[in-house]
C-alpha cells in the first residue's frame, strides 16, 4: 500500500518512450525479432486485459448498476432500471451524504495543511543527521507499518470515554469517539499520526537524493538555511513534491479503515467510502444506491487523477 504511488510513478515513465517515437515506428518494428514482437505484444496485452478486467469493467458495471434498484438477490435479468432516482435520493433524502462530503474535504484539508507539512518538516530536521536520528526515524515511521484498522484499536484505548487513557490522565470526560463535534478531529489526529510518518519517510528519501553541492553553492552565496531550502532544495524536489501531494489526496479519498473500525462511519464520522460500504457490502445489499454513491466518489477521484496525469504528462513533454 505504501509503495503505491511509487509504482504509479514508475508506470508513468515508459509511455513517453513509445509515444514520442512515432516517426520511425515501421522501421523500428521490422528491426525487432519475432520473439521481441511476441514479448512486446504480451507485455502490452496482459496488463491491458488485467486493467480492463479488474478496473474498467467493474467501474463501468458500478456506473450501470447505479441506475438500478438491485438488491443483490435474484438473476440479472430481473434488474429494474430506475433512472437517476438513486442520485436524487442520495442528494435529497439521504442525511449522511452531505456530512460525508464535508468530512472528506475536511480530511483532505487537514492532511494537506497540517499533517503533510509537518511530515516534511520532520524530514528536513532528520536530514540534519541529528544524534539518534535513526531512532527518531524508526519511531516516526512505526505507525505506517500498522494497518489503519489496528490504529483505530490502539487509539480507542486512549480515547474511550469511560476507560480511556486521555480522560483518565486529565480527569476529563470528553466523549472522543462518540461526540459528533469532536470525533472527526480525534480520528484525524490518529490518521495524521500515521500520515506524518509516511510523508516524513518519502520526503527524507527525496532529501537524501538532493545534490549537496547545490546547498553548498547556496550557502556560499550567503543564503540562510530556510532561504536555501525554499529557493533551492524545494524547487529541485518537484517530482517528490508531486508524489507527496498525490499521496495526500489518495490518502484522504481512501480514508475508510479508521472510521470503519471506530463506528462504521456513522455519527459524525461519515465518509463517502464508508457510506458505499455500508450500502453495498454486507446484509444491506442496496447495490443500486451504493453504486450511485460509488460513482460519485469515482467522479471526484477522476478530477484529481486527471489533474495529476496532466501535470505528469506536461512534465514529461518539457
Amino acid at each position, binding site marked *: 500500500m505504501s509503495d503505491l504511488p511509487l509504482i504509479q510513478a514508475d508506470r508513468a515513465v515508459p509511455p513517453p518512450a513509445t509515444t514520442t517515437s512515432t516517426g520511425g515506428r515501421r522501421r523500428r518494428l521490422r528491426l525487432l525479432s519475432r520473439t521481441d514482437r511476441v514479448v512486446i505484444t504480451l507485455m502490452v496485452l496482459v496488463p491491458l486485459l488485467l486493467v480492463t478486467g479488474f478496473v474498467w469493467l467493474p467501474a463501468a458495471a458500478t456506473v450501470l448498476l447505479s441506475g438500478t434498484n438491485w438488491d443483490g438477490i435474484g438473476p440479472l435479468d430481473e434488474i429494474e432500471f430506475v433512472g437517476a432516482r438513486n442520485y436524487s435520493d442520495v442528494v435529497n433524502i439521504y442525511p449522511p451524504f452531505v456530512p460525508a462530503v464535508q468530512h472528506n474535504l475536511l480530511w483532505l484539508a487537514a492532511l494537506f495543511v497540517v499533517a503533510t507539512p509537518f511530515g516534511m518538516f520532520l524530514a528536513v530536521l532528520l536530514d540534519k543527521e541529528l544524534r539518534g536520528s535513526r531512532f527518531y526515524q524508526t519511531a516516526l515511521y512505526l505507525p505506517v507499518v500498522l494497518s489503519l484498522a489496528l490504529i483505530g484499536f490502539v487509539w480507542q484505548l486512549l480515547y474511550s*470515554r469511560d476507560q480511556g487513557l486521555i480522560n483518565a490522565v486529565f480527569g476529563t470526560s470528553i466523549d472522543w469517539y462518540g461526540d459528533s463535534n469532536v470525533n472527526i478531529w480525534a480520528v484525524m489526529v490518529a490518521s495524521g499520526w500515521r500520515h506524518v510518518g509516511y510523508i516524513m519517510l518519502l520526503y527524507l528519501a527525496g532529501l537524501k537524493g538532493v545534490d549537496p553541492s547545490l546547498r553548498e553553492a547556496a550557502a556560499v552565496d550567503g543564503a540562510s538555511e530556510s532561504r536555501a531550502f525554499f529557493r533551492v532544495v524545494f524547487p529541485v524536489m518537484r517530482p517528490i513534491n508531486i508524489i507527496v501531494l498525490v499521496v495526500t489526496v489518495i490518502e484522504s479519498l481512501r480514508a475508510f479503515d479508521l472510521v470503519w473500525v471506530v463506528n462504521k462511519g456513522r455519527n459524525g464520522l461519515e465518509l463517502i467510502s464508508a457510506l458505499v460500504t455500508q450500502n453495498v457490502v454486507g446484509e444491506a445489499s442496496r447495490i443500486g444506491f451504493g453504486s450511485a454513491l460509488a460513482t460519485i466518489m469515482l467522479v471526484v477521484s477522476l478530477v484529481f487523477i486527471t489533474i495529476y496525469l496532466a501535470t505528469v504528462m506536461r512534465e514529461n513533454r518539457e
Partner: protein
Amino acid sequence: MSRPQSQAEYLARLVPPSVAGINRRSLLAGAAGTGALLGTGLLAGCGDDSGSGGSSKDVSLGSNQSDPKPKDVLVKVTDGFKTSSGVQVAVNTVDHNTFQENINNYLQGKPDDVFTWFAGYRMRFFAQKGLASDISDVWGKLSGYSDAFKKASTGDDGKQYFVPATYYPWAVFYRKSVWQQYGYQVPKTITEFTDLGARMKKDGLIPIAFADKDGWPAMGTFDILNLRINGYQFHIDLMAGKEAWTSDKVKKVFDTWAGLLPLHQPDSLGRTWQEAAQSLQQKKSGMYLLGLFVGQQFSNEEQSDLDFFTFPEIDPAIGAKALDAPIDGYMMARKPKNEDNARKLLEYFGGKDAADITVKNDPATLVANTSADVSGYTALQKKAAELVGSATEIAQFLDRDTRPDFASTVIIPALQQFIKNPKDIGGLTSSIENQKKSIFTD
C-alpha cells in the same frame, strides 16, 4: 551523492534501506500467498464441502456460531445426532458477523444443506425469494413448541421454514444488592419508572446505563417503547413498511423517549454495550435495558446478584406483555444435496434431545422447546423463560423485524441523530419516512 540521471533511477532511490532488503517480487509473492490463504480460508468456510457432501451418510451444516462456547455446544448437539441417526454432520463454521454479512451470496451460491439463521423478517424474505426450503413436514413431527414460536417460524405463505433452537429476552437488568441497599422497588408503570430514575439520580447513580456506539443497542429501546405505546401489531406493521413513520403514534414514541433520555447515561454514542454493562456491574448505574447476554460482563459469583424486570406498562390498554426475544435456529437451503438427512437433522435440532444437550452446556441462553429438561437452568434463566412464556407477543428485535438495508442504513443513523438532538422529532420522522418510501418499493 551524485544526482540521479533519470526519474526511474531517482524513484528507485526512494526505497528506504529497511525495505530495500526485501525486493518487490518477494513482497508480491508474500502478498499473493496471504491472499491465497485468506481466499481459501473464506471459501472453505462459505462454500460447500464437496469432498464429503456426496455420500448419503452425510449432511452439511453452515454455522455462524463462531464463539467458543456456542461452537462447542453445537459440536455436542451434532455428536448427539450422529449417535442417534448414524449420519455424520460436516459443520462449516464462519465468523458470526461475516456469516450474516455474506448471507445473500452464500444462499445464492452453494450453501450447506442446513444453516443457522434467525426468525423474523429476513427469514420470511428468504422463504419468499425461494432461497430456503419449506419444512412444514418437519414441523409435523415436532412437539413442545408454543404457538408464538410456531408463528415466528412461519413464512408469509403460511408454511414453516425455520426450526427455533434458542432465544433470549430483552429486559431491564439490575443488581439486587444495589436495589436492596437503597430500597428500590420494581416499577410497574412508566410513572413509577421515572420516579425511580429520579431517586437513583438523587442517590448518585446513573439511572439507566446506555450505549449506542455500534448503532444497534438503541433499537432495543425504540422497540420496547413502541411495543408499550402502540402495541405489537403496529410495531410489526411499522417494521414491514406498512405504517407511516410520520404518524403521531411514532412521534409519541420519540416524545416519550426524549422524556426518558435525561435518565440515560450521557455520551452514549461513544460507548459500547460492554462498557455500559460494566457500569452496571461496577454499581455506577442502577439499571440497563439489554438482552440476557448482559450477564457476560459479570463474573460467576456476581451472576446470582443479577436480576431483571420487564419494561413497565405505559398504556394500560396495551399492557406490558409483549417484548423483544430474538430466536436463533436453523433453516434448510433451497436445494440441499442430502435432503433426507437435512430434514432428519432439522427434526433432531427441534427435538428434546438437542434442547437437553444445549441446556446442560450453555447457561447463557434459553431453549425454545418447552419439553426440554430445564432443571439445569439458573434462577435468572428460569425467570427469563417464565417472562417469555407469559408474553402474548414476541418481537425479534428491530434489525431482524425489518429489511436489513432499512435497519442499517436508515434507522441506525436516525436513532443516533435522535440521541444527539432529541428535539427535532418532526424532521427526523419525515426523513425516515422519505427514505423508507425509497427502500420499500415492492
